[in-house]
């Protein structure tokens, strides 16, 4: 939205040409200037500039929705609001399970079972909706190479023996879990940025990143100068993209 070109904000052609002479081509550049600068750059009077500001703001402002509309939308599809973890006390505490449409973070000391939990969630996500799953594919970004496919099959067969009664079902399930091994920060970031198209094409219903901390700690030593800012930059950029994906597609991350 910020990179929207001014041409599409319904400004007149000559105005856009004039602004591009000052290197102002996107809504972001336009809104970052103060009123006096805008007057100088557009050559318009004060009132005209205010009207232009309103026009450009309208082009990139978010849409309004009341809380009631949001609730109605959620209640239309109650089962899709959460991914149940099948651990009843955990589901109760989480108000239904892992919420769809927002980021959930799992932290613990090493060896507690985070990767096992993630593997189990991947199995659950591939189950049909009638069994409490999301009936979709899973994207698993693995930075520690800790994902074991054999363990996945073992879990699925033992947990849901009635459903995974044939080898074919197991194969089908493992086919819908897409594993990406990324070992550096910028690879992870690039992968996150490219996820949007994959989600649509593969009908993904769950994104797991295991784990964010390991790759960040390996690369950024916070005792060195300047690394702290870069690290937080990387983390916040990744976080905002993931939040956008979670909200846009209403899937848990």
């Amino acid at each position, binding site marked *: *939205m*910020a990179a929207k070109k001014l041409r599409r904000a319904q400004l007149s052609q000559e105005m856009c040409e004039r602004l591009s002479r000052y290197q102002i081509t996107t*809504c*972001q550049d336009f*809104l*970052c200037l*103060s009123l006096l600068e805008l*007057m*100088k750059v557009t*050559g*318009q*009077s*004060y*009132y*005209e500039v205010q009207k232009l*500001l*309103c026009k*450009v*703001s*309208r*082009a*990139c*402002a*978010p*849409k*309004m*929705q*009341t*809380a*009631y*509309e*949001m*609730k109605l939308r*959620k209640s239309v599809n109650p089962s899709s*609001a959460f991914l149940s973890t099948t651990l009843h006390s955990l589901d109760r505490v989480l*108000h239904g399970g892992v*919420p769809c449409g*927002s980021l959930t973070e799992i932290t613990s000391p090493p060896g507690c079972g985070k990767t096992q939990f993630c593997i189990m969630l991947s199995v659950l996500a591939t189950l049909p909706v009638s069994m409490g799953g999301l009936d979709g594919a899973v994207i698993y970004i693995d930075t520690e190479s800790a994902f074991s496919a054999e363990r996945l099959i073992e879990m699925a067969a033992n947990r849901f023996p009635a459903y995974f009664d044939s080898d074919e079902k197991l194969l089908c399930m493992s086919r819908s879990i897409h594993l990406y091994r990324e070992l550096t920060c910028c690879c992870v970031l690039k992968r996150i940025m490219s996820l949007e198209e994959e989600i649509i094409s593969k009908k993904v219903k769950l994104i797991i990143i295991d784990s964010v901390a390991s790759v960040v700690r390996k690369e950024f030593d916070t005792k060195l100068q300047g690394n702290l800012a870069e690290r*937080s*930059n990387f983390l*916040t*950029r990744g976080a*905002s993209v993931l*939040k*956008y994906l*979670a*909200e846009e597609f209403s899937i848990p991350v």
Partner: protein
Amino acid sequence: MQREVGTLPLAPALRARLAAAGFQTAQELLDTGPCGLSKEIGISREEALEALQVVRQECHGDAARTAGGSGATRKCTALELLEEEQTQGFIITFCSALDNILGGGVQLTKITEICGAPGVGKTQLCMQLAVDVQIPECFGGVAGEAVFIDTEGSFMVDRVVDIAAACVQHCHLIAEAQQEEDLRKALETFSLENILSHIYYFRCRDYTELLAQVYLLPEFLSEHSKVRLVVIDGIAFPFRHDFEDLSLRTRLLNGLAQQLIIIANDHKSAVVLTNQMTTRIGQSQSTLVPALGESWGHAATVRLIFHWDNSQRLATLYKSPSQKESTIAYHITSQGFRDVQPPAVTHSTEGTELNPRKRPRTEEEKQ
């Protein structure tokens, strides 16, 4: 009428031409007329007419201001201000200790900033306030609507439903205890659907959308004149990453603060912002301070800092023009933001916990 040409809100190129042609005051422009103007400085007659209309509008505005007209003036005596402040409403937070240290609750026409570490309860308080602003006046509320601008995506509708249900139930209990007709009538409109439909939600994903939304806010507020609360949840988030030019950031934030102050004053609404904490690394130790830098600290009128003390949540009033600095403890229950000590169960004290102004009524009843 003697206003200088250089101060008129005309286009800069036009101003330069007028100065080059030798025009000095607005009166000269008006005397020349559009045709004369167009011949002298070489612009078309329509442009000259437009310019003259702008000049005339400005001069009329000036004349009205000097004659002591209303509307544009922002000056009044301190006595008028005192009367205004005393009749002004507060938005209660349902935590009486917090209301007490704030002097009654979140004040209208002021900017309140809530800073805290993640998970301490800032968004919870914002959701509580968005529900509390809609409490009808006979229960001690301001009967307004709320605008919620979300930059972090932490607004959960289900949680708001819980908070609103608890608030409605609380008002029902009071109405039953007081047994008054107007209370019951007000409760008919104070239902869950009404509360939710009067919370206007905007999701801004980066700072450009936030800036655009704040530019459009005055128009929105004049259409929805009952709005009494604007919440911006997470003003720090879009400005903290991807900003290499810190001076641009400071400039944008200051501009934002100015606009919010104007909005708070013109529409008599409270503005609540939430901020994150950052670590300031000192010589020997590091301290947690509110994010966005020193100059942002001047933007808010009232500053609350939420922090942890072992497992107790505390709120400190860090900056306020009228109240003294103090710290209280609060709780977040399934019903929302509450005091640590549950209030006494008798009905009369329930009324006083809601709003100090209710006290006279219950005392009369007891008599």
